[in-house]
């Protein structure tokens, strides 16, 4: 799984690619926590999910943990550009009720302002 972290317009932008499954969540969580600790300049986070090809319940659990962590810092987590297959997982697990999902990264960044 590949992840890049950047700050855009004062919002943390995480771009993910590959699979987000049980084997990858620990590394992803650790990378995100480290990045968040090292930078205090943002509270809101946008996850660009376009590159994710598969996500299972562990991946979903990791995103929920991320949401909790961001919320605890007074921020908001938004997901952008969910691929169809990942969107289907969100539909059946009712995760779409928890996350705010945007069609584009720009829309998500705008919603964070």
């Amino acid at each position, binding site marked *: 799984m590949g992840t890049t972290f950047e700050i855009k317009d004062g919002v943390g932008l995480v771009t993910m690619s590959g699979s987000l*499954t049980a084997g990858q969540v620990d590394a992803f969580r650790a990378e995100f926590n480290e990045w968040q600790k090292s930078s205090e300049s943002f509270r809101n986070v946008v996850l660009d999910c376009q590159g994710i090809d*598969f996500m*299972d*319940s*562990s991946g979903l659990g990791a995103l929920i943990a991320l949401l909790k962590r961001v919320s605890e810092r007074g921020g908001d987590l938004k997901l952008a550009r969910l691929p*169809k*297959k990942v969107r*289907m*997982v969100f*539909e*059946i*697990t*009712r995760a779409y009720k928890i996350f705010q999902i945007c069609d584009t990264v720009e829309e998500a960044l705008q919603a964070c302002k």
Partner: protein
Amino acid sequence: MKAVLQTGSAPAWAHDLGFETWALAPVAGRPLLEYWLELCDLLHITEVRLVLSDGAQAVEAFAQDGARWGLKISYSFLDPDEDPDLFLTRSPELWTGGLFYLRAPLFPRRLAAAPLAKMNVAGTHLHREGGRTACLLSAEPEFLKTFLAGAELALGAHDFAELGFAPEPVASLQDYFELNLRMVRGECARYVSPGYFFKDGAGIGFNVVIPPAARLQPPLVIGNNTRLGALTIIGPDVIIGHRCIVDQQSELARCVILDGTYIGRNLEIHDKIVAGQRLIDPTDGTVAEIEDPWLLATVPGTLRPADILRAVLGWPLALLLALLQCIPFLLLGGLLKVTGAWGLGRGAYHATRQRRAALLAFPTAAGGRLPTLARLFRAASLDLFPALLHVLAGRLWLCGQEPLRVGSDDALRRELKEYFPGALSYAVPRAEVSDTLIKRVDALYYAHHRSVAEDTRILLRALFGRLAGLFGPNGTEPLP
């Protein structure tokens, strides 16, 4: 009059559902082929020829001799790449006395609300798809002679609607989904035999477990041996196949769940087809393989008496072999490690019930000659020790197919309908290979010939074959 039904190969939609042939794709819980066989009976046809290609074994296992429908079913084979019409032209004289011919994946939709009565057919009825005859019913020898000579005639042919049914194409997942929903919304009643009742819009099979806290909202169809969890909400417009499990607090509406599917806890499935671990959106045909037993999974088939016998005999035998190997494995394995001759690789393999097992494997035949100690280790089958422990844990059978590697063999694993990974297999006596074709042939051969006698043969060959191969080029038997 005789019937010739082409079960053919799977169009893309049937393949996405996991079927090798469209004929076995279920509509309202029954294979599509069964609707055609019932229609043959209504048309006073007793002799039915099923033309098989892909999925032949499954079709034959389902239809058998046809006695269930009062039919005499015989079978023929056709190469999937050949034109289906070629079969009729092989011996045209067989069919000129009257022919009911089905060429393509169609559904015989009954037009009247009441069940169809038996009927005598005169004249010719024809249905075309894409400019070619897709379904034909003719009692006219002259017409049939011309048709069998290769001419596409429609002159003088009547529409099937006159007989009270209309062949309807099933050309996509969307067609398949809508057909199922239409059936559950009421058309199911047209296909039930007199004496059955579908007026309340709920068809529930045998041995279905429904807890009091589950809520059923008809119309719905639930197959045999299905189990619903507490606080589930099923319906409206839901078809659940046989041997399914819907776990607690899940909600299903406007969806088709195929046989042997596990739906995890607290899921919401709307407007979808679920086939085992495949989640399908029929509107655009997107198929998501969800390899996560917490969400969707395939329910293993029911245990057959032979499987119980295998478990009863196999487990103590595996225990005995593991006890015999324990100390030699530790001693010789330790020696190999110390001398640096330990060349075995450790990898993750697909085990039973979607679990995984870590196993040891020697390098492939191309990897060079094994050192003497390693050859001894191999001759005593000590590399199988971890596999025997997996047999004791229920992750592998004692004898079965060669376990498939996670990653490199994933495509083959998905392709195999019957997967019985075993500690001992045809592959044990020979050198390790990475050729998928050999693995596929072995797996299919075993699935077809699986029996206690075959397992015994594998056991003996696996244990003694390696001993015999000790003095071979690499301590192994040559490849077949």
